[in-house]
């Protein structure tokens, strides 16, 4: 719907006395807009969700410009003169055991950790969407085959699946991203298949079929847009978990390797020098918590916006 139409629609509903019939204030205002716009309107009226989005935007912005603020050399090169300095104006997050500025490392590390999180979700979501759509849409033996496979994968806890993939590929950040992403696929497959089965029963799908639409058209034009809401919520909340797990595996020495400033790798070094330098483990961990917290705020906001009935 073009903006002019929606404006007109909004005007006419308001004129017909929407508020008088006792509708909740936030619904009569937005009647006539597309579901996406209505959800967006609800999302942006939620102060917590907007806070989360603002923090995330700031984090992305700062990490994008990290190379302009600190050079790679500054955060990698060893300097004996500045070893283990506590936080000060010159080094707000202190320096580490090799004399490197921790703030600079945390900012650069954000590039690694966030990118890892996004890629993990992308792998899980991509694989799960393809398998879920095929499974839910094809039915029959194809569905059966995929579902039995997913059953088995779901019987293995995600962390074990991820560990076995890292076990096969060997340690490294790329390997960990792949591992955690692959371990996510069964969850997404289940979720998307369920949504597809539900959406398939809708009349607009039957109508499209009667009109002679191809399977592919029905799948991508009619079903996918209608199942995307819950998937988006799940993927957002999954992003927070992905960041925590990849950082955790890096902490264990299975992911990013030194001298990488990845947050989990920084935590690992922080553990070793914890007795002498509390700032070494505290700041990179705080970065993870703030990033995950903002993502969870966005996720909860999305959930309320897409499905206002669930709101508590």
């Amino acid at each position, binding site marked *: 719907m073009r903006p002019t139409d929606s404006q007109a629609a909004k005007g006419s509903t308001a004129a017909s006395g929407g508020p008088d019939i006792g509708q909740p204030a936030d619904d009569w205002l937005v009647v006539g807009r597309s579901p996406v716009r209505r959800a967006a309107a609800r999302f942006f009226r939620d102060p917590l969700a907007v806070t989360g989005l603002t923090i995330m935007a700031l984090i992305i912005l700062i990490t994008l410009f990290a190379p302009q603020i600190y050079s790679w050399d500054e955060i990698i090169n060893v300097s004996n003169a500045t070893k283990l300095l506590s936080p000060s104006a010159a080094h707000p997050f202190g320096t580490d055991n090799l004399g490197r500025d921790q703030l600079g490392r945390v900012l650069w590390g954000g590039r690694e950790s966030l990118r890892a999180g996004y890629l993990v979700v992308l792998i899980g979501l991509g694989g799960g969407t393809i398998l879920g759509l095929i499974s839910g849409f094809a039915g029959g033996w194809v569905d059966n085959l995929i579902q039995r496979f997913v059953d088995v994968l779901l019987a293995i*806890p995600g962390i074990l699946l991820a560990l*076995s993939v890292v076990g096969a590929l060997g340690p490294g950040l790329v390997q960990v991203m792949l591992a955690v992403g692959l371990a996510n696929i069964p969850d997404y497959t289940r979720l998307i298949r369920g949504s597809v089965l539900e959406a398939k029963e809708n009349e607009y799908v039957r109508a499209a079929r009667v009109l002679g639409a191809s399977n592919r058209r029905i799948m991508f034009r009619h079903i996918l847009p209608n199942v995307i809401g819950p998937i988006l919520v799940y993927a957002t909340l999954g992003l927070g978990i992905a960041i925590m*797990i990849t950082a955790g595996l890096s902490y264990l020495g299975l992911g990013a390797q030194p001298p990488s400033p990845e947050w989990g790798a920084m935590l690992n070094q922080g553990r070793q020098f914890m007795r002498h330098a509390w700032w070494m483990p505290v700041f990179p961990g705080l970065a993870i918590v703030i990033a995950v917290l903002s993502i969870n705020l966005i996720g909860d906001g999305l959930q309320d916006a897409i499905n206002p009935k669930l709101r508590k």
Partner: protein
Amino acid sequence: MLVYTFRRLLLILPTLLGVSLVIFAILALSPGDPLAAVVSEEYGNTAEDIERIREQLHLNDPLHVQYLNFLWDALRGDLGTSFRGGSSVLNDIMARLPSTIQLAIAGLIATMLLGVSAGVLAALYRGGLPDKLTMLFAFVGVSIPSVYAALLLLLIFAVELRWFKVVGDEGLKSLILPAAAMALIPAGVLARLTRASMLEVMEEDYVRTARAKGIREALVTVMHIFRNALIPIVTYLGLLAGSLLSGQVFVENVFGRPGLGRFLVDSISARDYPQIRGGILFVAVGYVFVNLIVDLLYGVIDPRITYE
């Protein structure tokens, strides 16, 4: 109930078969030579040596033969021998098991105590301070990685306050910090779930009836509300097992506990394939059985569930 239990036990067989196949397949599809980390010409082993060891370990057999051997050995309790040191993988696992089970139980208790009590308080004082604090705890709790929670607890209670030793075994006392770190995320989820479940049950007719009969409020809360609110909470226990397991892998390593989580990570770092494969299979099979027990528990807690 007996028939149901028996059928569930039968149904577990294909699952276990699938789980063993997936784990074997993932590790067999490894791009590198599994032996490269142990014997190679770089370490002064001759090509004949390597070939002899490959033959000895049956690494030259076709994959399906290797899988069937692996399965057959696993069924007889033989998970292979470690590349490093040549010890029996099952013995290595058994040596680590007590520490892991202790921590799992401690983590479960901590989760239940923290999550259920916070959730119940939040529901009873809906909209009040306990409710707000619980929801804040639940929200922030799930955003703190267990590795970081563990580090912070160590930093505050061991390094600064010196209530605990940073390293070294102090018996049951040394379970407190790791259990708390493990519990944080699942307790947050559990608190939300308990609160929602309690609020739902409070609206039920049978609760109103109980009050109308003049039963004391405390008794209504425990016998009518809490008992029924437990059902979705028990359902969550199955998922909780996975969450605790993942917490365990991270937390054992932070606290240097010699458990299975640490065993897995060490074996991956050392690229010791028999240990990786045996360890992951062992934990996965254990997880399947834990879920079975949780499933069977539903019937005990909720007599409305009937097994035909």
